[in-house]
């Protein structure tokens, strides 16, 4: 009887352990003095030092942040307004546009990468920051659109009517009532979209130019030619930042709840 109740916990823990095992490896080997991953050459922080001096990696990181940021911003505006407008419109085209708009996350990324490569060369757009941002915006929109759409379904329509009734113009209603209520959905959509953009290899690889490359593309090329533990160090730093942000946001939420009451 006891065994039966413990089995799920053991299973969950085991799967999680395997999920984290490779990440743990990367972290451990970021402190490896030897350049070869097969050999443990003793503890060292050299790779962190090298990482902070590596201009190329820094540039790639900045590019990734810029691409992710700009695409999320554009997708947040287009996706939020689009979901809002589509929920009010009574057009036959509505379903079709929604279907096409969310297609980028439904089909294999390779297709999207291929069509963007072909399309941008048809338009004579040189690969670079612009093409990256357009392509990333295309697959960021669905995340935000779907989140906002779900939130709109659950939203009481009479809240907006109440604002109109109390004298607010449609624009004012949007900024004082609709948008604040949608904000959590927009934010979580952005968070997801940014994570996807920041980690995207397949689409980026087709639309990056010789001068502008994103971090995942940079890592990919390195992995094909030979990785230095600098990348391990970078990953460890990023992981640290992520965990910090998650812990802090959890802490703030708890604090907010306490002061709220």
């Amino acid at each position, binding site marked *: 009887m006891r065994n039966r109740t413990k089995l799920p916990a053991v299973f969950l823990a085991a799967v999680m352990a395997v999920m984290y095992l490779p990440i743990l490896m990367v972290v451990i080997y970021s402190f490896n003095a030897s350049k070869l991953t097969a050999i443990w050459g003793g503890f060292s922080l050299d790779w962190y030092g090298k990482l902070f001096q590596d201009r190329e990696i820094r540039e790639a990181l900045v590019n990734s942040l810029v691409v992710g940021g700009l695409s999320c911003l554009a997708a947040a505006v287009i996706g939020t307004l689009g979901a809002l407008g589509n929920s009010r419109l009574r057009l036959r085209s509505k379903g079709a546009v929604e279907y096409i708009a969310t297609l980028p*996350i439904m089909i294999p990324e390779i297709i999207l990468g291929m069509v963007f490569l072909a399309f941008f060369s048809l338009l004579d757009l040189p690969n670079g920051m612009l093409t990256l941002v357009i392509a990333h915006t295309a697959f960021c929109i669905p995340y935000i659109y779907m989140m906002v759409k779900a939130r709109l379904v659950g939203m009481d329509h009479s809240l907006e009517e109440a604002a109109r009734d109390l004298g607010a113009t449609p624009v004012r209603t949007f900024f004082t009532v609709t948008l604040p209520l949608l904000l959590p959905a927009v934010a979580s959509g952005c968070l997801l979209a940014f994570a996807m953009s920041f980690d995207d290899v397949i689409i980026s690889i087709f639309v990056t130019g010789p001068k502008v490359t994103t971090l995942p593309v940079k890592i990919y090329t390195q992995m094909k030619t030979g*990785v230095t533990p600098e990348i391990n160090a970078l990953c460890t730093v990023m992981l640290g930042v992520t965990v910090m942000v998650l812990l802090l946001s959890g802490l703030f939420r708890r604090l907010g709840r306490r002061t709220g009451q």
Partner: protein
Amino acid sequence: MSRPASGAAAGKIGGAGRRSRGVWLTALPLYLFTIVFVAGPLVYMLVLSFQTKAEGWGVEQVFTWNNYLRILDPVYLDTFLQSLKLAVSTTLLVVLIGYPFGYFMAKLSQAWKRRMMMLIMIPFWTSSLIRLYGWMILLQAKGAVYQTVRFLGFDIDPLKVLYTYPAVLIGMVYALLPFMMLSVYSSAEKMDWSLVEAARDLGASPMKAFLSVTLKLTMPGLLSGVILTFVPSMGLFFIADILGGNKIVLVGSLIQDQLTRGADWPFAAALAVVLMIMTTLLIFLYQKVTHSTELEGLF
């Protein structure tokens, strides 16, 4: 509020009528972007797939079926079959691990659910490439696994896993598992557990209750997880590339290869069109079976 009656829905039509001009403006950016940057490229891909590759580099505007006929060539057909085989085995393994995971997770206490969620989300924020790299460290001939076993006093030969089919399979399952966990979890979380109790109360054995109630009710999550696993697995060329060396060629790798080295865009487009048709059919099937337009657990 599953089915709003005419009154409420009608209320919205009336309200929208006068303001429809403003509403149009808000939806306009989405319509423009979607038509120009999503529908446009996809249509161009279709057009491209019927054109002819020019000598050397570029495309000629000559209509041809050849690109599609070429896919029937045993070499390419074999690639499709190999991709399908990998995608199916990946999906099966992901179901076998991910379904019980999502199911058990939904039975945890609220606090543990939150912690689990966080643990699943953290890897999302680390580069998937780097996580693959972690597997490389583990699976190398004299990598971490080998060294650990040796350290424990067992004498084994260097591993022969990296750059083989099993290594690619491990990488694929590892990369796609979280999607299945989350969609099954979201489905099981919403489930009314008292239904299972009711089935048990009515005399069903635990197995029977699971098959007749739990499995049925979590089916949308399971199917959505299957799609979220199967669809990307056809195109994740970089996993096969890194963990499989150059030995495993998938449709994704083939398309990438045709685009870059082969410089045969029309053929790449034809491959992409076929892949696209396969995935849209799958999604269409999902919508028919579950009567829902959205994938469970993605949002």
